[in-house]
C-alpha cells in the first residue's frame, strides 16, 4: 500500500513539476494534451533526479529525501493547478462512450489497460532480475545503508560508474518506501513510452485508433512487460527516446528556441539514463544537417535555434562528464577508454561480438530476421516474443503516407547500424527505439488490413497469422503475470517466489537474508565474488578483495597477485563472520530456453583456488541453489591449517 501511495504521489509531483516548463515551451498551446502530459512527466523527473544527485553525496536518509519530496510537492502545486482536469474527465467519458460503439476501440483500450495494470502491479514482486540485483538496486541499497551516495570501488563493477539518472529514483524509493515502489516508478516510464508511440502516430496524421494500436504493440513486447516490473533502464530510456523524436519534430516545424531547449533537455536526460543515449544523439546528426541545409535555402527559421538543442543536452550531461573525468580521466567512461586512457584497459572491449551471426553486410541486413525469428540461436533470447514487429513494420510500404516516415526512420536506421557494429547486439537495447517501430507496425498493419477489405482469400490467412501471434503474445503476458502477480499481491512469500522463479544465477535470497538476519552491527562478511546482490547487506561486505587498492581494475585487466600467505593474513585481520560464495549459475542461452545449471570452479573467482578447497571440507550454515554461506571462524581455522 505504501508503494502505491508513493508511486501515485511521485507521478503527480513529476507531472506537476514538468507541466509549467512544458507550458512555457508550448505558449501557443499547439501540443496535443497527451504529448504535453508525457513531456511534463519526463521533464519533471529531471529536477528531482538532479536534486538527489546533488544532495545524496551529502545525505541520503528520510530527512533529506523526505524534505526534498515536500519541497518538490509544493513546487508542483502551481503546475497542477493549471492543468485542465475537467477536460481530462470529459475526454475519458467521450472515449468510454466511443468504445461502447466501436468494438476495436474497446478491445484496444481493454488490452492497454489490462496489460499496463498487470505490468505495473508486477513491480510489487520482489526484485529478481540479474542487473537490478547486481547494480540497479544494489548500489542504491549500498548508499542507503551508508547514509550518503558513494562509489563502492571494491565491487570492481564498471556499472557503478554509469550515469544514474533513474537509479536516483530507486534511491528515493528505498529511503521513503521500498523496492516495489522503485520498480513501479520505472514501470511508469513504460506507459510514457507507449504514450509517445501513440503520439508519434498522431503527429504524423493518423487516426487515434491506430495510435492506440501503436501503444498496445509497445506494451506487449515481451521485454517491455518484463522490464516494466523491474528497475532496468531500456524502457525508461525508450520513453525519453520517443519524446526526443516528438520534441525534435515540434522544433523542426516551429523552429522556436524553447522547443529546441526541450529537445536538448530530453536528449541529455536520455544519455544520463543509459550511455546508449550518445548513439541516439549521433542518430539525429544527419537529420539535423539535412534540415538545416534545407532551411538555409528556405525560411532560415531553424538555423537560428539549431545550436540550442545540442548545447542544452551537453549542459545536462556536463556534471557527469566532469565527475567521470576526475574519477577516471575519461569523461565518457567506460566508452572510448583506449582514446582517453591509452595505457589503461578497454573495459567494454569486444562486446560487439557477443551476439549475432557475424559482422558482415549480410549479417547486418539479416539481423532483424535473425533476432525476430531465431532469437534463441544467435541473440539474447526471446526478447521480443512473437515476431509481429518483423511481420508488420515492412507493411508501412503499403501506406500512402509512407514518405512522411523517412525522417523518423533515418534515426532508427543509424541507431540500428551503431547497435550492430559498436554495441553488444543485445536485442533488449533495441527496445530503446521500439516506440518508433511499434508506431510503424501499427500503421503498416492498418494499411494491410484496409487493403484486404472484401478479399476473403487474403483476409483469412492474415487473420489467422495475427490471431496466432496475438494468442502467443498473450501467453507471454500471462506467464509473467502468473509468475510475478501472486508474489506482488502477497499470495506467495518472497522465499517461495525466489525458489521457484528462474533467474540468471538466482537472487541469493536465502543466503543473503541469512547474513542480513545474523550479522550484528560492526560485523563484516567476505563475498568471494565481486557483485554483492541486492538482498545481501551491502556496506558490511568485503567484496572479494584484501588489497587497499580497490581501483586496480581501472588500470589493469588482471588483479594484483596475492599469495596464499598474504590472503590468509588479510582475512584473519578482517575477521569476517561469514563467507558467502557462488556455487553455480543458471543459463538459458540454448535453443529450448531450458535452465541449465553450471557449476563454478576454483578459477571462476579471484580467490577460488584458496577458498574452494576449504569450503569443500565444511558444511554451509545456509545454502541456496546457487550460493552458500560458511561460518567465518571455521573457514579461518582451515585456512590457517593450509598455510601452516
Amino acid at each position, binding site marked *: 500500500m505504501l508503494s502505491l501511495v508513493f508511486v501515485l504521489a511521485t507521478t503527480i509531483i513529476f507531472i506537476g513539476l514538468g507541466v509549467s516548463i512544458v507550458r512555457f515551451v508550448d505558449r501557443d498551446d499547439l501540443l496535443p494534451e497527451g504529448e504535453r502530459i508525457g513531456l511534463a512527466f519526463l521533464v519533471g523527473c529531471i529536477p528531482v533526479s538532479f536534486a538527489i544527485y546533488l544532495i545524496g553525496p551529502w545525505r541520503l536518509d528520510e530527512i533529506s529525501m523526505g524534505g526534498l519530496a515536500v519541497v518538490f510537492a509544493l513546487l508542483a502545486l502551481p503546475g497542477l493547478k493549471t492543468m485542465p482536469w475537467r477536460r481530462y474527465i470529459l475526454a475519458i467519458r467521450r472515449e468510454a462512450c466511443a468504445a461502447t460503439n466501436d468494438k476495436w476501440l474497446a478491445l484496444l483500450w481493454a488490452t492497454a489497460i489490462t496489460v499496463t495494470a498487470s505490468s505495473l502491479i508486477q513491480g510489487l514482486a520482489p526484485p529478481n532480475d540479474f542487473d537490478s540485483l547486481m547494480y540497479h538496486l544494489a548500489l542504491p541499497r549500498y548508499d542507503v545503508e551508508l547514509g550518503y551516495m558513494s562509489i563502492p570501488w571494491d565491487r570492481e563493477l564498471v556499472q557503478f560508474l554509469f550515469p544514474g539518472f533513474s537509479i536516483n529514483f530507486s534511491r528515493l524509493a528505498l529511503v521513503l518506501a521500498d523496492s516495489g515502489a522503485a520498480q513501479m516508478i520505472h514501470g511508469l516510464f513504460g506507459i510514457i513510452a507507449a504514450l509517445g508511440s501513440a503520439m508519434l502516430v498522431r503527429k504524423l496524421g493518423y487516426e487515434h485508433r491506430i495510435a492506440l494500436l501503436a501503444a498496445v504493440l509497445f506494451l506487449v513486447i515481451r521485454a517491455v512487460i518484463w522490464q516494466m516490473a523491474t528497475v532496468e533502464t531500456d524502457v525508461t530510456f525508450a520513453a525519453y527516446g520517443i519524446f526526443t523524436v516528438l520534441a525534435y519534430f515540434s522544433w523542426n516545424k516551429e523552429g522556436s528556441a524553447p522547443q529546441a531547449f526541450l529537445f536538448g533537455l530530453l536528449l541529455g536526460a536520455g544519455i544520463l539514463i543509459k550511455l546508449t543515449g550518445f548513439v541516439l544523439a549521433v542518430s539525429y546528426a544527419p537529420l539535423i544537417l539535412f534540415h538545416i541545409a534545407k532551411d538555409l535555402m528556405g525560411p532560415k527559421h531553424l538555423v537560428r535555434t539549431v545550436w540550442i538543442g545540442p548545447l542544452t543536452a551537453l549542459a545536462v550531461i556536463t556534471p557527469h562528464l566532469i565527475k567521470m573525468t576526475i574519477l577516471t580521466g575519461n569523461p565518457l567512461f567506460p566508452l572510448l577508454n583506449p582514446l582517453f586512457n591509452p595505457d589503461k584497459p578497454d573495459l567494454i572491449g569486444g562486446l560487439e561480438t557477443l551476439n549475432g551471426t557475424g559482422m558482415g553486410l549480410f549479417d547486418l541486413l539479416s539481423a532483424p530476421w535473425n533476432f*525476430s*525469428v*531465431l*532469437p*534463441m*540461436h544467435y541473440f539474447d533470447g*526471446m526478447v521480443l516474443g*512473437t*515476431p509481429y514487429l*518483423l*511481420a*508488420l513494420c*515492412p*507493411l508501412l*510500404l*503499403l501506406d500512402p503516407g509512407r514518405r512522411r516516415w523517412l525522417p523518423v526512420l533515418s534515426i532508427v536506421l543509424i541507431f540500428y547500424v551503431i547497435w550492430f557494429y559498436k554495441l553488444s547486439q543485445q536485442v533488449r537495447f533495441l527496445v530503446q527505439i521500439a516506440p518508433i517501430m511499434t508506431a510503424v507496425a501499427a500503421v503498416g498493419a492498418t494499411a*494491410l488490413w484496409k*487493403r*484486404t477489405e472484401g*478479399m476473403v482469400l*487474403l483476409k483469412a*490467412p*492474415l487473420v489467422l*497469422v*495475427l490471431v*496466432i*501471434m496475438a494468442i502467443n503474445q498473450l501467453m507471454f503476458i500471462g*506467464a509473467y503475470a*502468473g509468475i510475478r502477480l501472486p508474489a506482488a499481491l502477497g499470495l506467495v512469500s518472497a522465499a517461495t517466489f525466489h525458489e521457484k522463479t528462474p533467474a540468471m544465477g538466482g537472487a541469493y535470497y536465502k543466503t543473503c537474508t541469512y547474513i542480513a538476519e545474523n550479522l550484528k552491527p560492526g560485523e563484516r562478511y567476505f563475498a568471494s565474488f565481486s557483485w554483492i546482490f541486492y538482498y545481501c547487506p551491502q556496506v558490511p561486505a568485503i567484496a572479494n578483495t584484501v588489497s587497499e587498492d580497490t581501483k586496480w581494475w581501472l588500470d589493469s585487466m588482471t588483479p594484483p597477485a596475492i599469495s596464499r600467505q598474504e590472503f590468509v593474513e588479510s582475512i584473519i585481520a578482517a575477521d569476517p563472520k561469514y563467507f558467502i560464495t557462488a556455487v553455480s549459475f543458471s543459463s538459458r542461452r540454448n*535453443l*529450448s*530456453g*531450458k535452465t541449465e545449471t553450471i557449476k563454478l570452479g576454483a578459477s571462476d573467482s579471484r580467490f577460488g583456488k584458496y577458498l574452494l578447497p576449504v569450503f569443500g571440507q565444511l558444511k554451509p550454515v545456509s545454502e541456496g541453489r546457487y550460493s552458500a554461506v560458511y561460518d567465518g571462524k571455521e573457514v579461518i581455522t582451515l585456512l590457517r591449517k593450509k598455510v601452516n
Partner: protein
Amino acid sequence: MQIDKSGKRLLFTALAVAWCFAVATAYYTFNVAYYTEKISTFGRFFLTLVGL
C-alpha cells in the same frame, strides 16, 4: 492502365500477406524446441495450480 494499377495493388497485398505468413511459419518452425519446453513446463505449473 487501370487494370494494371489494381493488379499491382492486389499483387502487393498478396505479397504482404505472404510475408506475414512466412515470418510466422519460420518463427514457429525454428522455435519448436523452445515451445515444446515451455508448454511442458507451464503445463506442469498449471496442473500443480489446479491440484492435479
